């Protein structure tokens, strides 16, 4: 299992300084991007493609909250996809109602904006709570919240 945090010499935590991460990412790419090896041997070029790809993927993962948290679970050996615990019924019915509202009020900007605000606030709250739990190493408690966050994220993207 690849640990993307190690690539940047970071500890696997939820709270990463994104400005620092970007700087680390650019420093690594400046070192390993295949453009730096344009005149090297094919073997070296291939290594550079490998490293640069890995750095790109690692950066995207750690820079995207949902992917980052999923990766922390992966490192802990927790399989989010195949977790059998169901999502809370009340949460589901609430959010499916929201989805219906979105599709039935496509043209109504006020309604859409109201939903947008609600979802964004909810998203931030979830993210905060999950990160607090992960910091306390309460992974299984945070897992059920994370599955709900994935659902919220889907709605967020739909609104975008």
């Amino acid at each position, binding site marked *: 299992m690849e640990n993307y945090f190690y690539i940047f010499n970071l500890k696997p935590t939820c709270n990463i300084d994104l400005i620092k991460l970007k700087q680390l990412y650019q420093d690594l*790419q400046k070192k390993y991007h295949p453009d*730096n090896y344009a005149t090297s041997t094919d073997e070296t070029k291939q290594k550079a493609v490998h490293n640069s*790809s*890995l750095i*790109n*993927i690692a950066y995207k993962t750690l820079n995207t909250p949902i992917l980052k948290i999923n990766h922390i679970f992966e490192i802990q050996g927790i399989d989010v996809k195949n977790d059998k615990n169901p999502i809370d019924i009340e949460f589901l019915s609430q959010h499916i109602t929201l989805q219906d509202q979105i599709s039935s009020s496509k043209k109504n900007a006020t309604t859409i904006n109201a939903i947008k605000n609600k979802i964004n606030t909810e998203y931030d709250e979830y993210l905060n709570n999950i990160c607090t739990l992960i910091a306390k190493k309460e992974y299984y408690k945070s897992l059920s919240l994370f599955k709900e966050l994935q659902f919220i994220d889907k709605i967020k993207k739909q609104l975008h």
Partner: protein
Amino acid sequence: MALLQIAEPTMATVAHQHKIAMGIDLGTTHSLVAITQSGKPNIIKDDCDNSLLPSVITYLKDKTVIGYDAVNLIHKYPMDTISSSKRMMGLSFDDIKNYDLKIIRGKNNSVEFLTSAGKISVIEVASDILFNLKTRAIAALQTDIKDAVITVPAYFDDAQRLSTKDAAKLAGINTLRLLNEPTAAAIAYGLDKKKQGYFVVYDFGGGTFDISILHLSDGVFEVLATAGDTNLGGDDIDSILIDYFNHNLPSHNKNISLKTIARKTKESLSTQEKININFKEIGINKKIELDRKTFESMTRPIVNKTIEICRQAMKDSGIDNKQLNDVVMVGGSTRSPLVRKIVGDFFATKLLVNINPDEVVALGAAIQADILIGNKQKNSMLLLDVNPLSIGIETMGGICEKIIPRNSTIPTSIAQEFTTFKDGQTSMSIHILQGEREMVADNRSLAKFVLSNISPKVAGASRIKVMLQIDSDGLLTASAEEINTKNKISVRIKPSYGISSDDIEKMLLDSQKNAKLDMEKRMLEEQKTEAKRVLEAIKSALNKDKKQLLSRQEIDKINKACDELQLSTLSQDTKDIQQKIKNLEKSCENYVAKRMNKAVQASMVGQKLM
């Protein structure tokens, strides 16, 4: 798969010798080559001071004619003259919509031209253009150059990019990087040095129109949207003028080409308000007066077509005019005041027009080439590109499952697991696609390969890992393996109708032979020039002081050597000319010594000689 150890590129050797690499704009209507010297990119011109090389080649039985000379042969040899072949780059015969008499179905469903010189593939045409540009650069810099950055349209897919790289290989060029044309134009304007911003690259050339919307943030150039029309360009404006001329001229031979006059008219009206068009040179005794206003009302619909495409691209990009920082103008047609006005009004943003719009892409490529070959500090710039189209794999039911989404920063790689769907299944066909559509049939098929010898298990029990990798040129490699076994297959994606690597090898050998021939020809020319130079220098010296310094015999001896050299230049024997130059130099040794003495003596008494 952690980070691998890589030795730092050896900077020591680089620091000592200044390496040279070309920036090449391989265009639909014309191509250019540029080289960065002392930090400044320059277009390399041909012997006749032309920057542009029309991307036109005439293939005759005994010779190949390229560029402006080929343009002049279009009417004489319409079937043997190939132009705009870039439009067919990386396409299969079945992809060609506009039927062209010259085209035939080649090997593996590729596109070939049937000419007097035989069958010529699209890649060979591109390769001949690249070779010509390379020769131009070598002649200008008097040193061997092999490396180049070659530009491609941002929307070029894997097959089109690979074909471009194959053409370069065939021309003996090592591709340092394929660079997107809009990115190259942005680099030429130094936009990559900005921290961040949104840019439009409006590229209105002779035969094609492209628009790209770029987002730059900390050295990452992202193509947010790209759109265009491969059959819309300055040529359409020429056609409108030709129709207008035909309408207003007395009946004449319709075969007479009015194209040159149309082009001149268009160019004059970019700077003048009103002109008198004279048709005397094509044998018609009539003048037509045309003012800019009338001209613009005729051509406005063409420009408006480009604006419709811009509107669509802006919508796709999800940004609005207010966020735009600059609009980069590329292509000869952007010289037109009407184009500038309409584009400026539409985007309500500053237009960048100071760099010659025909040259801007090649100049940007030359800047990037210079960096890649190692002439600048490694830390100066990091240019990251994204893949323009998503890569996916066919799954059950003809669905394309996207594995690498479009606009992922490249290089990138990804692994995805698949499983068998039948009990006892021992092989699996893997079909790789490129495009944004849901259904396999609507996307472009890149390659199909089969992983066999899968250990037979119940359906869903075998695990097959498919790995896809896109390198920094946007080219794809795929491999598949059965997990927990040694069963592995790896393929470099080749369009199923493209040329095989065997064919490429064979063509490479042929081209090396030709290259040798071309090299010999060049050396002969060089020796002839050298002979001419030596003869002139000696004759002018003799005229000045032979009587004072030389005996009758000595003069005869030198004259004889001169005559022999003169004669040898009529032959095609490089070595003979070389030898005769040496002979002449030898026969002059005594004379040269005497002249030197005289010069030294003269300088001592303060007199000026010569």
